């Protein structure tokens, strides 16, 4: 497993408890449209990602993240900046 795969696997684990509709997750899955998350769910999920990786994801940054792949890349970048 590459480092990226590990990050993605962790993120998929974090998505699970919020994936109430049981949508199949791929790199292209969109949080708002495909998972139909409202703003509160997004906040709880973002908080769980922040805690898992010990990073801050600002609302400015979160607004640019639409898909699972984009989140994985953002998390890896934020981790490297830490």
């Amino acid at each position, binding site marked *: 497993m590459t480092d990226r795969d590990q990050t993605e696997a962790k993120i998929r684990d974090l998505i699970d408890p919020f994936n109430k509709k049981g949508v199949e997750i791929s790199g292209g899955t969109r949080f708002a449209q495909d998972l139909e998350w409202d703003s509160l769910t997004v906040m709880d999920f973002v908080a769980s990602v*922040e805690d898992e990786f010990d*990073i*801050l994801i600002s*609302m*400015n940054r979160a607004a640019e993240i639409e898909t699972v792949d984009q989140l994985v890349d953002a998390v890896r970048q934020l981790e490297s900046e830490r």
Partner: protein
Amino acid sequence: MSDLFSKFDDLIAMREGLLSTGLTDPFNLVMEKVESPTVAICNGRRTILLGTYNYMGMTFDPDVVAAGKKALDEYGSGTTGSRVLNGTYAGHKEVEDALKEFYAMDHAMVFSTGYQANLGIISTIAGKDDYIILDIDSHASIYDGCALGNAQIVPFRHNDIDALEKRLKRVPEGAGKLVVLEGVYSMLGDIAPLKEMVAVSKANGAMVLVDEAHSMGFIGENGRGVAEAQGIIDDVDFIIGTFSKSVGTVGGFCVSNHPKFEILRLVCRPYVFTASLPPSVVATAATSIRKLMHGADKRAHLWENSKRLHAGLRQLGFKLGTDEPQSAIIAVIMPDLETGAAMWEALLKEGLYVNLARPPATPANMTLLRCSLCAEHTGEQVEEILGMFAAAGRATGCI
């Protein structure tokens, strides 16, 4: 041509659906006559007002009204100018002096509305590489202040001290930090654990701004707000407030002890690029603020009202936003928007006005009937209000 309004279609449909049931439009109420801080004529009916934020009932105070009339005669109807050009009159200085005295702080800056105070202060003091860490349930004016500026915005779970601390510790080394909190959160009427939150913020090198819009005049020994009540007002860097609640007119302000505070008058766009408040408004505000300094008896009566309404509603079987009354706002939680709107209308027919609050303004997509008490509500009126809630609640099947 694409219609720019098509983005509102869902909202238009929801509204039409609700009104097609024959319901009175909750967002189109007109007060035909206002008799006092607690009574108005709405749709021809005498109505008890329980949703005005007029906490201290200053709107009809004879001294306040007289001050406004005098200023209208002496200074005219408006300033037609920005505070930094031709819009600063003696009255603007006087109201800022009254605020400095009320809060025992060095500086006060008055804005044309409370909304603009948050918009101006937050957008100006937090710059591009700074971090604003704010409670997720913050008021729209706080979010809009964040949006107007270009700082990094980090929300944390409502009133969660650990969540705040974790985020503070993750801010990059050297970045500026502003923590934004409210004393009373207006949707559920709950207060913030400011003592702990301000301590955590200070320990992590952040400046703290507290919006005390819903506590001024009422909470704290001198009515300075939740920060005063919890004994940490001296550790708060900026307090934001409004004249449109306890003060009883319109306008907003920021008070602070920061030594460089006055520079904001030149760099804060929502302060510079708008007309200043009319002379009559600042005169009523200054008079009202000075009277609020000596409002201890009214504060005590307002607490009595708040406690009685909270206990009474609970006894009737309503679900409330807080287990104990924490402020002058009592939020009644409705099962859904349809029931909430029906209950709101039933109360209006009984002769009671409350605020109907619905998503997206509410936390967790709740529909709320928000009651805000006034120090001028008599004990008898509070009992009358409970009777109306009982009748309307039974008629709509809420209880």
